[in-house]
């Protein structure tokens, strides 16, 4: 009986906590968008989005318990998107015309 309850709690307890954190972060992001922070608004919103992605990937996608190879493949997507942004903006942000 007790084991059954513990099993059922395992099903939703961790994901439930992650879900509440994600909803809270979403609310903070939405609220902050109405504060007059200038260029800071976008930085705050994207910063919160990055934290939300980290929570989603680590807990709900279970990357924290994945084997090293899976983590490397997941990181490869992130790595190449950073390269794409860096190379693109190294051109546009250094133009003087």
């Amino acid at each position, binding site marked *: 009986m007790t084991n059954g309850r513990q*099993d059922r709690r*395992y*099903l*939703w307890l961790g*994901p*439930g906590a*992650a*879900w509440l954190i*994600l*909803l809270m972060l*979403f609310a903070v*992001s*939405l609220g902050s*968008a*109405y*504060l*007059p*922070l*200038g260029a800071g*608004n*976008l930085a705050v*919103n*994207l910063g*919160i*989005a990055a934290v*939300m*992605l980290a929570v*989603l*990937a680590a*807990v*709900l*996608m279970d990357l924290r318990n*994945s*084997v090293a*190879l*899976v983590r490397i*493949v*997941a990181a*490869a*997507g*992130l790595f*190449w*998107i950073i390269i*794409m*942004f860096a190379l*693109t*903006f190294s051109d*546009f*942000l250094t133009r003087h015309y």
Partner: protein
Amino acid sequence: MSDTAGALQHPWPDLRMQRAGVGLGMWMFLASEVLFFGGLMVSYAVYRSFNEDAFRIAGAHAQIVYGSINTVILLTSSFTMTVALRAATANVRQATLLFLGITAALGIAFLVCKGLEYREDLKEHLFPGPQFPLSPPATAMFWGFYWAMTGIHAVHLTAGIAVVLVVWTLFKRRVIPVQGSTMEGVAIYWHFVDSVWIVLFPLLYLAGRS
């Protein structure tokens, strides 16, 4: 033959390794998807960096209420999908079916909400073309990105819903066992669709709110 024995496929020695293999394959696919959406996002970033004011003016016209409701729906669907995955891994069949069904329902609710939002957008002629009401002209660029990004995201979500419904049916009819590795791939894909929305929301709905 036990349910677990039916779940194990050649050439895997055990279910744990089989699930890791499916997860690895799905993550490889998603790494290519990241670059697909990344191309759109880097284009958005370049155009926004040169047209900051126009993007703020245009972004203020996005339907924030629909966008926020849809964000809560998708975040909740990721929670229910994870519960379904854990239930499947623990071979709790009824909970797997229940939470997989709720996940599909939430996905459909997102699309319905998106449809209502698109209707409001079109009423205001917020589609780049002759009747586009905003100025300066670069505001049309923002709305071009809005339609492309949300449209492609909706296509991905539709594919996700279709897969979830097919898997639900196969589980229900006991064609495949819930404890196999199928749920691993389905869940990772679903969370990816949610991840894309987490990035799209601040880019398309929060610009120009302050």
